[in-house]
């Protein structure tokens, strides 16, 4: 069985499930599991948000999730299981946009692997966020250009988004 699972969930078919992520990355040999959940919040840059639509190029996103997982697996010597889930469609407040989990023998690797996956997904996956505001306006978020670093998917923790 592959040590990673990648999911794109259309919100109209139900939300992402952190419990399924925890279960997938659990292993008798693993003492540490780190999980990240990204949720739609009610404000961004001072504007009141009512929801977010996620647009996604699904085949490339799934391909990229698998590449991210394989690279993190190599970095951590295969002693890691990973779950990468992202929602698409129109999400309301509190809905889960992203669920990432990493299971490893010890906690330090779990935290680092989880963070590495989250940053890579945020900075390299073909996913676009359109925020909807209470005044009926909406706007596509500023993002990371994929030009010129087609082979680099590491992302940078210092990015603003």
């Amino acid at each position, binding site marked *: 069985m592959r040590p990673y699972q990648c999911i794109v969930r259309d919100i109209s078919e139900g939300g992402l499930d952190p419990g399924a992520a925890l279960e997938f990355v659990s292993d008798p040999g693993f003492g540490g599991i780190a999980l990240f959940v990204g949720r739609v919040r009610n404000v961004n840059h001072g504007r009141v948000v009512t929801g977010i639509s996620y647009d996604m*190029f699904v085949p490339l996103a799934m391909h990229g999730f698998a590449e991210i997982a394989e690279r993190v697996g190599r970095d951590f010597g295969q002693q890691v299981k990973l779950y990468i889930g*992202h929602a698409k469609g129109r999400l309301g407040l509190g809905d889960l946009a992203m669920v990432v989990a990493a299971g490893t023998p010890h906690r330090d690797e779990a935290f680092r692997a989880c963070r590495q996956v989250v940053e890579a997904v*945020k900075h390299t996956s073909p*996913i676009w966020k359109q925020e909807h505001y209470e005044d009926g306006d909406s706007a*596509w978020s*500023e*993002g*990371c250009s*994929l030009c010129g670093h087609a082979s680099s998917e590491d992302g940078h923790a210092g990015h603003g988004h």
Partner: protein
Amino acid sequence: MKVAIKLFGAFRDHEPSGQVTLEIADGARVADLRQALAAFAAAHWPRFRPGLLEYSAFASETAVLRETEPVPANGHVAILPPVSGG
């Protein structure tokens, strides 16, 4: 050759169908396709800001494409504005 370009994110605001089809020369490279899309946008999308295309990448279903690569023979690509997932 005909190239079907899938549109994402802010590009959809200009083409709600989410796709445009352009005719380009056989053997054209990604950079040529970029020029063709820029010309199409200038002609058809009155509110389009050219800066968006500059920061956008072309991609197949499995990889981001470099400017010097030939356009995929199956004639299917996507144009990816700066990404903002998560």
